[in-house]
Each structure stands twice: as structure tokens, then as C-alpha cells.
């Protein structure tokens, strides 16, 4: 089973853990996942932490999933519009699929994403869950 390498995981810790995005200093566009160059052509970007609340835009329920997620079937994956308008895709947890609906209030949570076998690294990151429970 191939996992993201330890160095790549380590480099991505700010955006996996705290939703650190990149904002263009020239035009203000925000990118998540972070990018090196803005659409406007500028390479002057700064780090910005995204808000941890938003609304569910759309979601889907996956019954055929990748090897690392086999034990979590069915997997809910959704698109969440954060309170500053930035849209982020991610796994939705602590929710019952039939009770979810677009517009539901969501919050960012910190969860285990991949554990590299019994002896390897546990990789943590962001997921979403409904606020107040569904």
C-alpha cells in the first residue's frame, strides 16, 4: 500500500492541520490547496488561515473507496463553502448521509486521515462535520 511520503506530509502540515491557504497580495484571490502563482500572474502570495465554519454546498456518498478508506465505508465527501467564501472539499464525519442537505452548517474538525499500517506514521488533517449534529 502506497501512502503519501513522510516529507510531503510534513511539508503540508500547515494546510492539513490549520487550513493555511495562500492569498495573492496583488489581487486578493485565495487558494486552497495553496499554489505558488496566482491566476493574475503574481507570485507574491502570503499565508492566510481559513475560517473553520461554513455551509455544505453539495455532497456525495461513496461506496467504492480507496484502499486507505475501506474500513470507513460509506464515505461521505462534500464541498463546503467557508464563511469567507472559499470552497474546500473534504470528508464529512459524524453525520448520517440521509439526513445531510446542502446548506447545512458545517465545522472543520481535526481527525486521523491515514495511518500507515501498524508501525508507520499516523497522518492527521481536516475533515468537516455538521454543527449541532445530524
Amino acid at each position, binding site marked *: 500500500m502506497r501512502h503519501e511520503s513522510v516529507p510531503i506530509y510534513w511539508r503540508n*502540515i*500547515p494546510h492539513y*492541520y*490549520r487550513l493555511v491557504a495562500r492569498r495573492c497580495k496583488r489581487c486578493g484571490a485565495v487558494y486552497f490547496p495553496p499554489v505558488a502563482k496566482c491566476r493574475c500572474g503574481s507570485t507574491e502570495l502570503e499565508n492566510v*488561515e481559513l475560517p*473553520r465554519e461554513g455551509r455544505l454546498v453539495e455532497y456525495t456518498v461513496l461506496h467504492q473507496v480507496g484502499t486507505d478508506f475501506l*474500513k*470507513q465505508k460509506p464515505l461521505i465527501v462534500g464541498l463546503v463553502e467557508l464563511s469567507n467564501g472559499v470552497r474546500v472539499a473534504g470528508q464529512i*464525519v*459524524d453525520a*448520517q448521509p440521509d439526513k445531510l442537505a446542502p446548506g447545512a452548517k458545517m465545522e472543520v*474538525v*481535526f*481527525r*486521523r*486521515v491515514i*495511518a500507515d*499500517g*501498524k508501525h508507520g506514521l*499516523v497522518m*492527521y488533517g481536516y*475533515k468537516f462535520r455538521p454543527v*449541532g*449534529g445530524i
Partner: protein
Amino acid sequence: MSRVGVVSWGAYIPKYRIRTEEVARIWGDDPLRIVDVYLVDEKSVEGLDEDAVTIAVEAARRAIRRAGIDPRRIGAVYAGTESKPYAVKPISSILVDALGLSNNVFAVDMEFACKAGSEGLVAAIGLVDSGRAEYGMTVGTDTSQGEPGEHLEYSASSGGAALIVGKDGVAAELEAMYSFVSDTPDFWRREGSPYPMHGEGFTGEPAYFRHIVGAAKGLMEKYGYKPSDFTYVVFHQPNGRFPVRAASMLNIPMEKIKPGIVVTHIGNTYNASALMGFARVLDTAKPGDKILLVPFGSGAGSNAFVFTVTDLIAERQKTGVPTVEEMLRDKIYVDYAQYLKMRKMIKLFE
């Protein structure tokens, strides 16, 4: 700038619950008897993708949100747990990056059974009071272990509680603290062993009661308190009976300990147990209330703390951070098979 104390608190209880009767059904126990013995109706269960790290991060984030401070002003972070996902690799360093603390921070994981989180509180108080850190944080976090079919399984549960200590913006000022520690083999887990061992008749008198009562009495004698001085008293809660009996041994009336009891609804969250009860009390406390907090850890030891609630408490209670009471109500029940899966107790090829 006031004296050192608790600036903010945050708690996290996973959403999943298993009823005591469901566990008893699997292992052939009489559920009514079990509930009567432990006074635990149901317990919290971590999700499949949760562990002591994720629980600590959620509790700590809530404490920071409630405090409204820049996390880079926190100069010390301690995690107290007996459920480390790694034998070697700290939770506290993950907290540093997950919470956005600066890299100039004292950080370590502490182990003293269920007392480690409160020992982190002592360390944070020391650093802040001496002026070596502006704020310090401690998190008690656990996904507690109990062997399936063994009595601990009826209470061992999951949760976390975080406290931020400072001198600026104090919501509960520290008045006194006192410790009581001895080598008492009441409960232990050897290196590599998945479940703890405990002496059935040994956990009460020589361990829990001796140390809880020893710390509480020692504190009262040394600093001149009497039970009537306290508005609330919060003890470590391995089950629903022990804190009630400890209160009776100290002549503390039931109404003073009831608001801080959470074990009946979520079980024993180990390092978060007493701190969660403390958080529940802080959620509704009034200025001037005096709180006696006495966590306990097997092995064994207790720390006793006295806090006086300040006028800032109302501000901290209005931050929109979920209260312990709200989390106690927000739950999804699971059956025993789901529970085993979530607790990662089904053996898989990895």
C-alpha cells in the same frame, strides 16, 4: 493583571455513546446490577478516525476560542494521557502545529495515569506565576482502555478537556494547591500491554479514597479551608459512586458535587474526567464561587486546587463555545459491534 488562574477552558466529547445495558448484554451481566454498582448509564466512544491527539486538538481549540487570545502567546503546552497513539512521538508537538502556537514553547506529554493532565496544570501555573510564560495550556485527553468483558469496560471512555492558565483575563483565580502521592499499585498497564490491570478491592480505600481525601484534607488543613467554604467540589470520577463517597468522607454535601459529575453520562474519560467536571462547573459558575478540584491518578496521587471565580466568567461563558451540557446531549448511539470497530479492537491485516 491579577493573580495566576484559569483564563479559559474547552472540552470535547466524541458524539458516539454505548449504553451500559448493551455492553452487559454481550458479556452476560445483569445490566441493572451493573448500572447500580457503577452508576454509569452510558459512555462516550471515539469515532473511527479519532484518538487522544484529535480529541486534545478539539478541546484545546475550544479553550483558545473561548479565551480569544492569539495562540502564539501560549508559552507552554502539556498533554496528559494514558492513550498515546505513539509510544514515542509527542501529542504536545502536534498540538503546537495544530493550534498555531509559536515554536518557542515548552511542550511535553505527561504520564501519571488519570492525574497527568492536572500535573500539566501545576506545571503551567508554575511557569506563568514565575513570569517565564505569558500563558500555559494543559490538556487531559484519553481514549481509555478497558479489557472487553472486564469491569473496566463499563466505564472506560473517551474525551478531552483543556485549560489555559494566565495572569491576564483570569476567570478562576488560583488560591491554593496541594498534592498527595504514594507508591500504590492499584492500576497499571505494562509496556506493550493493550489493557490495564487493576486490583478489584485495591482501587478504593488505599488508592482513590486515601489520595483524594488526603489531598483535600491536607489542603484544607494547610490553608485553613472548611467544606462550607466551597460552592462546588469536583473529584476524579472513575464511576458514579466514588465521588459521592469521597464527598461524604469529607462532609461535603451532595449538592456541591452533583454539578461537576459527568461520569454517569459519558463514563470515565481518565485524564479528562475531573477536568471535564470542572469545565461543566465553569460553564455555569458565578463570580465569587469557590471551587475545590481534586483529580486522581492511579499509582497513585491526587492534586487538590482551590479556585475563586472572577467577574470575567460571564464573558467567557458567552463565547458560543459548546458547553459540556450541550455535548452530553449531542449523541449518536452505537451497538457493541460498531463500538468494537470504532475503538479499533477488531483485528485487521495492516
